[in-house]
């Protein structure tokens, strides 16, 4: 079974702090993703990566950056956290291809105060 592990389940940060959300997958998947989930808005794609050191912006990349130095690890970075970034963040991975299902972690609930 694919396992996608997000390092923190809950996180509380202050406005202006630099925040790192970490995600690790154990199935040698090529693709990794960061989504943000908000009530009534569903899941929105922030960034994804289709290979090591390769990344592409999703629908809402503003205020975020990502890093993928190793195949199994994909980090989401909030350079200067703001209150409107309070949300549930979901990491996912998939094998190569355009029709592969995504495997999700359990999410990190980030609160920015």
């Amino acid at each position, binding site marked *: 079974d694919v396992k*996608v592990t997000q390092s923190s389940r809950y996180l509380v940060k202050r406005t202006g702090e630099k925040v790192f959300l970490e995600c690790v997958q154990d199935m040698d998947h090529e*693709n990794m*993703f960061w*989504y943000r989930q908000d009530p*009534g*808005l*569903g*899941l*929105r*794609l922030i960034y*994804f990566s*289709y290979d090591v050191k390769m990344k*592409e912006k*999703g629908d809402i990349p503003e205020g975020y950056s990502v890093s993928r130095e190793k195949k199994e690890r994909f980090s989401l970075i909030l350079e200067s956290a703001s209150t409107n970034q309070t949300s549930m963040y*979901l990491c*996912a991975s*998939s094998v190569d291809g*355009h*029709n592969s*299902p*995504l*495997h*999700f*972690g*359990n*999410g990190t609930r980030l609160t920015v105060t």
Partner: protein
Amino acid sequence: AQSVTQLDSQVPVFEEAPVELRCNYSSSVSVYLFWYVQYPNQGLQLLLKYLSGSTLVKGINGFEAEFNKSQTSFHLRKPSVHISDTAEYFCAVSERYALNFGKGTSLLVTP
């Protein structure tokens, strides 16, 4: 961009009753469609997927979905729901490497 619309934000239903959660997609070209379920405080779990072939797709936990090209729909059904089916359900369409999700339907099953 390809998109999906989930027509109901909330669906209340009694235990053992049938349920249908509606999803329409936007694309007129070949699509790959998915249904995911999210139980409280958990990540998303794949219920079923349509890639090609038979238009009736069976998934886990007794759910099934029917791909209807003429109506651009991919509705999720279960003939008899259980309390444990209470969850958020998301329809999604493939867009290059990623998936575009609908806004979700909250299924509430009561005794």
